């Protein structure tokens, strides 16, 4: 298949169109504006709906409405806007309404800055909203994955009737790479027998998250839990690169994983046995894969564009048996680590035998 040179945000937007999404609601924020701008231009040609909302609170609830009617609907934003959507995410999860929410991460806390960051890892994987809920989180590391994972996000959202987060970052959104515009083959989805479109020929339907009856909410929460367990069992995705003989495994997701790969290649040249484990799903997290590596006695070096968030998941998965080092680069102008920076850390943490 012929490749085209495409910007990450635009690849994601076109993939949403190809995945059948025709409803976009959003509010401007850097560094994701290419997504709404692209869809504002393309949707009218396709009979789709692009609507610029009054706020991210408006956006996420418009998504809830369109999705309640059975449509594939999405929104995109960055940290500060995603914060405002947390209420909506909780309601979407509680009412079991699908949605795709894209976070092209900028840096925080507060207004922070617009450089690439991974400071929203906790928010995305733990849920910034209230209550007992989880959302699958997909972490692309290339323009190709901005494309591929968008299809997967819509698929998972519909399959599990749950909001799905795509956690990208400013670098992935803004850079151009060759893209193969392929359509993935995904298994058939369950029928949408829950949607609201008027009760013609059937009893009325209700989509809600309020359960006041004795024991009702407990039952509801355990049912959601069972769904999350199924997601954990079936939907873990990660990339393993040269880990078989590795003494040291770098764990990174998104943009830093690419930089780490360059560092690992150089380390290998220098005779160091180093590999990479790149989680593609941040929830569900590749716990078993990490635990197995820990059992094999490998040492870990976690690198992130923050002061240490995913490293907690690595420590939990690896348990006490493995050494886990952390190299963090919180965002700021020009603060992306270079392969040399990471190589230096690899040398510092490489286990002495």
């Amino acid at each position, binding site marked *: 298949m012929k490749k085209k040179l495409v910007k990450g945000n635009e690849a994601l937007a076109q993939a949403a169109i190809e995945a059948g999404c025709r*409803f976009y*609601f959003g509010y401007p924020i850097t560094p994701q504006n290419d997504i709404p701008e692209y869809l504002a231009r393309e949707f009218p040609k396709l009979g789709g*709906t692009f*609507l610029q*909302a*009054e*706020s991210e*609170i*408006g*956006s996420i*609830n*418009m*998504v*809830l*409405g*369109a*999705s*309640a*009617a*059975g*449509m594939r*609907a999405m929104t995109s934003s960055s940290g500060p806007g995603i914060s405002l959507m947390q*209420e*909506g995410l909780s*309601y979407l999860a509680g*009412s079991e309404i699908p949605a795709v929410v894209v976070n092209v991460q900028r840096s925080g806390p507060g207004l922070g800055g617009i450089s690439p960051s991974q400071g929203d890892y906790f928010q995305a994987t733990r849920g910034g909203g209230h209550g007992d809920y989880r959302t699958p989180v997909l972490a692309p590391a290339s323009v190709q994955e901005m494309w591929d994972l968008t299809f997967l996000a819509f698929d998972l959202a519909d399959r599990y009737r749950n909001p799905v987060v795509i956690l990208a970052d400013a670098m992935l959104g803004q850079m151009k790479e060759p893209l193969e515009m392929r359509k993935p083959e995904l298994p058939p989805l369950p029928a949408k027998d829950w949607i*609201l*479109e*008027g*009760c*013609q*020929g059937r009893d*009325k*339907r*209700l*989509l*809600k*998250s*309020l359960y006041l009856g004795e024991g009702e909410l407990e039952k509801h929460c355990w049912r959601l839990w069972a769904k999350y367990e199924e997601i954990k069992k079936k939907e873990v995705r990660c990339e393993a690169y040269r880990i078989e003989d590795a003494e040291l495994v770098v764990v990174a997701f998104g943009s830093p994983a690419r930089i780490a790969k360059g560092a690992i290649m150089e380390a290998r040249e220098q005779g160091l046995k180093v590999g990479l484990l790149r989680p593609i799903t941040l929830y569900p997290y590749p716990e078993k894969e990490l635990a197995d590596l820990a059992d094999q006695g490998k040492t870990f070096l976690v690198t992130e564009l923050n002061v240490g968030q995913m490293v907690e998941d690595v420590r939990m998965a690896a348990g006490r048996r493995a050494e886990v080092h952390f190299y963090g680069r919180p965002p700021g102008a020009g603060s992306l680590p270079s392969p040399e920076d990471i190589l230096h850390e690899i040398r510092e943490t490489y286990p002495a035998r």
Partner: protein
Amino acid sequence: MSETAEKLLNPRPESLVDIPTHFCPGCHHGIVHRLVAEAIDHFGLREKAIGVACVGCSVFLYNYLNTDVVEAPHGRAPAVATGLRRALPDRLIYTYQGDGDLAAIGTSEIIHAANRGEPITVVFVNNTTYGMTGGQMAPTTLLGQKTTTSPYGRDFHQAGYPIKMAEFLAPLEGVAFSARGAVDRVANLKRTRKLIFRAFEVQVQRLGFGFVEVLSACPTNWGMTPIEAAKRVEEEMIPYFPLGIFKERKEADHL
């Protein structure tokens, strides 16, 4: 069958579920529910209607209205309705919101849905208090009114003035109909029935955004009997929240 068989003059609307009410004695929600149900029946759109329930006592609309219903987060019903409206252009979309929901936490959503002229119908029930949470001060609480969070009476120096939503929304270009009614006595109820019908009709005719505010009693949180509460609607609320139509568009605006 006897020759003097009874004839039911006002049968239960099809859009209203036949179950006992759980609302407090003297609460007006049940009356407003019935008027909404009558309006939906009137246009023959029960099977094409989707309601958006909000947060507060009014959320229980979903138990009583015999249509599809989705629950919105607090104040967000107009945004949820916007999503539904865009997804289902030929359906009847309505929200049913209380004063805390619409006039406090949901001001952004209501103003922008109204301003966009979303062809939806918003039924706004104003009882000057947060009923479900136990009678706290609402944006529509009258000056001097004692609530659990204005125990000395609402003072404008501290809490500003009760907000008049029907008048406030009327000048927005997207609004096709904005009115206020009450259901404290039969004459008002009959007028309000017409206002609610019209707020649905402007949606059916695609004239724009339809809004109707209904003054409502909350005897439990006002510490009154149902009769005293209905009297308060007339004596205290109507003088500040006048009944009437503040905007009525007869044809679609294509400016």
